[in-house]
């Protein structure tokens, strides 16, 4: 509406009376608008960082693996051998006696926590608009994630069937 690019060959303005007279002219130039994605002194050398792409790919790869780990886990804990009724310290001790199930649970813990944390990061990025809010929510998310992953890892590795 307010630009002066519509200039006819005879030099008169191409903006007709319907649009109104141009607001800007030689003495009152329009503010300069930078081209989108213009490189500035603050732009990193490469703007093609691939963290987001790696995160996107990780969601899909971890998802495929999690299908096996999580569905297997649900089958064992909730369906086979009497479902949840059988679960107790003795049952846990029986399963973690095997390095295979320790490894299963460890991989499931790490993949599910990182997958879920990255998913929540996306959700926070989508809805929390104020920079302060985003920072605090993500800080809380990362703290809770590190805490949970470390606690779970510690519990799997230091489990002691003869605790007393």
């Amino acid at each position: 509406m307010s630009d002066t690019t519509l200039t006819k060959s005879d030099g008169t303005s191409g903006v007709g009376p319907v649009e109104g007279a141009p607001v800007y002219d030689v003495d009152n130039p329009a503010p300069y608008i930078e081209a989108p994605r213009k490189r500035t002194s603050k732009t990193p050398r490469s703007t093609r960082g691939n963290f987001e792409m790696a995160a996107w790919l990780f969601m899909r790869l971890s998802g495929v693996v999690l299908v096996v780990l999580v569905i297997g886990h649900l089958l064992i804990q909730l369906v086979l051998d009497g479902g949840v009724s059988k679960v107790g310290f003795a049952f846990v001790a029986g399963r973690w006696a095997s390095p295979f199930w320790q490894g299963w649970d460890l991989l499931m813990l790490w993949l599910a926590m990182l997958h879920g944390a990255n998913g929540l990061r996306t959700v926070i990025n989508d809805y929390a608009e104020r920079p302060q809010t985003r920072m605090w929510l993500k800080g809380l998310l990362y703290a809770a994630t590190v805490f949970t992953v470390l606690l779970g890892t510690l519990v799997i590795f230091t489990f002691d069937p003869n605790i007393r």
Partner: protein
Amino acid sequence: MPAGTLYRGREGMWSWVAHRVTGVLIFFFLFVHVLDTALVRVSPEAYDDVVSTYKTPIVALLEYGLVAAILFHALNGLRVIAVDFWSKGPRYQKQMLWTVVGIWVVLMVGALYPVLGHAVRELFGS
């Protein structure tokens, strides 16, 4: 629908909404679940005490809901992966969603007895 919105409704949007809601729910559950399992490092009694509350009918119902959320998220996650990596994925996204819903219903019926059976026996006697 407000003008200029990105939300388009129908299968595409609602499956995304459900995927997001279930994903967030599962994450919060997982946080609590790691904490309760950590009780095996406190004492067998502490762990068994908490797990015994999981064998009550109300928690069985919550568990059924959790299974519902996980199964939907898992199946629909595979659909999302197919949409992204299979050349015909976007074209069949609707059919794939209804396939997901179909498999989900079958699995949920299959989970009725294993997950809720003990609660029904407790409530109505065996």
